């Protein structure tokens, strides 16, 4: 799907000093930041897409997830936990790299026509599925059609597709109604998984449930899923590519303190932390290294048009008076970084330098800590707009980070002379704010988080289109709409980046959403181990294959 947030767990995941994220950032550099004491300082966190390469192999790794996967069929139930496991087992037509660029993968080559309306994929030869059968163009076509089924999670990626055909023994041709800049990026995500048609059909409704084999071709095969206990994957001997460094990975799951304790006592070798607070609790532990990498995730305030925030000036005033650094420090242990756009730096899969400087320029609209000038400007805006009569209602759940954020928002509103109150609801109900306009009728502002699955800011900005269901304030700007649509149909990266920066500026000027901080991907890893990527690519890249020991044996 184009944009979504992890709907199961409000918590979040990733990021740090984007200043260090300059082009080609230090791949291979060891960026361990397990400082062995004290809390983190967002400004000093090193952010690198990778960890240093492993030298020694590993017979077995114990890995923690924050939750048991719902299903290992990502077409019917796509959650982060399932992806973290399955990305080692299943392969996609394109592959997202640790530096967030994409390249053809199970498609050995890809060709786009000059008018951008057809994409011709050559299916890689010599690839076998885990049941030993050969991967064919028929499997690819069948998989694409399954992804495109309206009942499946990825169907919205195929909105522009007009036809999908087998046009040669190993060739698939996809036709488009209009050029689609994000389509090949979607093929690096769940929309590009190639299933073994025979195995999926054989399993029927039970495909992806415990006790069933996988239907993929990746470096690991699913060995066992004991419902409620563990999932084991093992290296696939006939893998077409390089054999993995770690031969077997056993996944278990635990939340919050149980996860922290399991890492502390060495019961687990590592985890990708979905919540910065989990990582903050382990900052002092010398045996656990913390690696921070770029992700697309961010903390945001999403206003509704219900009360005063329907007025652009009040929204801008709130953005100017918010203490983002305070939220990062008190709510998230310094592991998130004040940020001026609603997508994290991991979204910069191309033209990094341009996006970085554009983000910095927007900091005047979203200061890390408001200055006296910012507050004066904010008060002026409120005066011009006229203060709303009823108190503004801030919707949140009871998690630590959101509670701190909600209180900081109330403080900011009070600072500029506006009344506010906090409405705390259970997590299950909280999720409905995102999707149910009726639930939102009770709030003026949602303390939210968001990430996009593709490394392209344009994967986000369609949320600001005047007819988007995520445009809750009724933002309308004809130029914005025109440029978003143009960018989505622009295949040239440089051209698309300049359009993206334009719409980003318009989105920020109108404060359609109010950005707070970007969240890094946090990899928690036994200090003796290294290898896997630290960026959000861990959701789509076979990270376990590169996990190994720091020393050659």
């Amino acid at each position, binding site marked *: 799907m184009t944009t979504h947030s992890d709907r199961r767990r409000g918590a979040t995941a990733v990021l740090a000093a984007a200043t260090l994220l300059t082009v080609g950032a230090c791949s291979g550099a060891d960026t361990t930041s397990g400082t062995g004491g004290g809390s983190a300082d967002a400004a000093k966190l090193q952010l690198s897409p990778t960890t240093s390469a492993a030298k020694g192999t590993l017979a077995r790794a114990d890995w923690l997830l924050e939750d048991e996967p719902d299903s290992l069929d990502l077409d019917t139930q796509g959650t982060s936990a399932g992806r973290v496991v399955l990305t080692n087992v299943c392969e996609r037509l394109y592959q997202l790299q640790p530096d967030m660029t994409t390249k053809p993968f199970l498609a050995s080559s890809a060709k786009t026509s000059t008018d951008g309306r057809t994409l011709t994929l050559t299916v890689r030869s010599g690839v076998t599925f885990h049941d030993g059968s050969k991967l064919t163009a028929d499997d690819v076509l069948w998989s694409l059609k399954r992804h495109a089924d309206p009942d499946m999670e990825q169907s919205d990626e195929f909105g522009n597709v007009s036809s999908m055909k087998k046009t040669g023994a190993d060739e698939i041709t996809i036709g488009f109604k209009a050029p689609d800049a994000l389509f090949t990026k979607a093929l690096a995500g769940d929309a590009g998984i190639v299933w073994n048609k025979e195995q999926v059909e054989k399993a029927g409704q039970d495909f992806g449930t*415990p006790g069933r084999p996988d239907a993929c071709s990746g470096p690991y095969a699913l060995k066992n899923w004991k419902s409620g206990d563990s999932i084991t994957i093992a290296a696939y001997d006939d893998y077409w590519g390089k054999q993995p460094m770690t031969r077997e990975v056993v996944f278990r799951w635990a*939340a919050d*303190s149980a996860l922290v304790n399991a890492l502390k006592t060495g019961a687990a070798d590592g985890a990708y932390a979905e919540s910065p607070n989990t990582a903050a609790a382990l900052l002092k532990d010398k045996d656990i290294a913390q690696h921070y990498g770029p992700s697309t995730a961010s903390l945001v305030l999403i206003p509704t048009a219900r009360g005063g925030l329907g007025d652009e000036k009040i929204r801008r005033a709130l953005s100017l008076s918010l203490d983002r650094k305070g939220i990062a420090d008190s709510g998230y242990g310094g592991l998130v970084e004040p940020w001026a756009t609603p997508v994290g730096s991991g979204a910069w899969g191309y033209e990094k330098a341009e996006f970085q400087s554009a983000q910095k320029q927007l900091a005047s609209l979203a200061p890390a800590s408001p200055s006296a000038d910012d507050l004066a400007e904010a008060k002026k805006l409120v005066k011009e707009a006229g203060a709303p009569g009823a108190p503004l209602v801030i919707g949140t759940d009871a998690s630590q980070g959101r509670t701190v954020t909600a209180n900081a928002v109330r403080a900011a509103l009070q600072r500029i002379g506006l009344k506010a109150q906090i409405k705390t609801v259970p997590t299950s109900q909280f999720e409905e704010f995102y999707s*149910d306009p009726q639930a939102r009728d009770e709030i003026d502002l949602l303390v939210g988080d968001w990430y996009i699955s593709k490394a392209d800011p344009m994967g986000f900005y369609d949320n600001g289109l005047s007819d988007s269901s995520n445009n809750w304030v009724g933002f309308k700007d004809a130029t914005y709409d025109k440029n978003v649509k143009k960018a989505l149909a622009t295949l040239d990266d440089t051209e698309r980046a300049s359009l993206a920066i334009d719409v980003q500026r318009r989105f920020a000027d109108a404060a359609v959403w109010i950005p707070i901080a970007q969240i890094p991907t946090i990899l928690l890893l036994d200090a003796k181990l290294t290898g896997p990527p630290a960026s959000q690519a861990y959701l789509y890249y076979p990270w376990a294959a590169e996990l190994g020991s720091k020393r050659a044996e």
Partner: protein
Amino acid sequence: MLARISRRLAGLLATLFAASFVIFAAVYAAPGDPAVFLAGGRDKLTPERLASVRAQYHLDEPLVVQYGRWLWDCVHLDLGRSFQYSDQVGDLVSARLPTTLQLVAYATVLFVVLGVGAGILAAVRRSTWVDSAVVGGTTLAASVPSFVAAIALVSLFGVQLGWFPVTGSGTGIAGTLHHLTLPALSLALGALAIISRVTRQAMADAAASDHVEAARASGVPERDIIRRHVLRNALGPIVTMCGLVMAGMLAGTVVVETAFGLSGIGSLLVGSINAHDFPVAQAVLLLMVTGYVVVTTAVDLVHPLLDPRVKEVRPA
């Protein structure tokens, strides 16, 4: 006796039937829309999509019709498919049930042995420092909520000393015992005070009865008096209370399961409620109620065997 048992069984079924309806209606009435969860991510929720999901899962039908459908399937041993896991509910539950049952069994052994033991000790040494120590100690234990006990036990014996694992339920008998010791202890602590108090009081009451006085007067050794007369007569209330506490535990393991990262019935229930996973929540709740009703019925049936006086006062 047979008539009594069959009457109890009929009562049990009636209770379950009533409970199943209450459970079904309660889960149905819980805030939140399962269709929102079922329909997937945040950006694909159109009203049409929600309506089609509701129709697909029969969520748009009246409550009674849905209940009837569910009950019919239940009677045919089909608990349905989980909304969240798309797996059979029966498989999900049976995969997690052993962990919870082992945990409750272990905790029961702990609180029965330690609680009854402490109660006997207090009763025998009544009004001495031993009595005060038992009453004081168990009161303290009972006042600590199980999640606090869990956190304290984990940080001391798991993280600091490293004697016990802090997550998972282990394999094999030794592994399971090792993994479940701390969770079972956290669970048993609260029960200790109740059981030791009941034991102490029941024994005091029994010791005050006429035949005990008579036996004592006729020179029967104190040890035999306590074993044959006092403890035997006190057993009824003690067993009843142990049964009730154990039955309560079946429904109360969630906090401990969460703290120790155990995938049991309790954490399955909470997860399913959060995800509006109706079929799973209903099945687990029904299972918990069944467990409670079965255990308390069993206690009721066993009671007269322990204490013949109970049978006499009830019409046979």
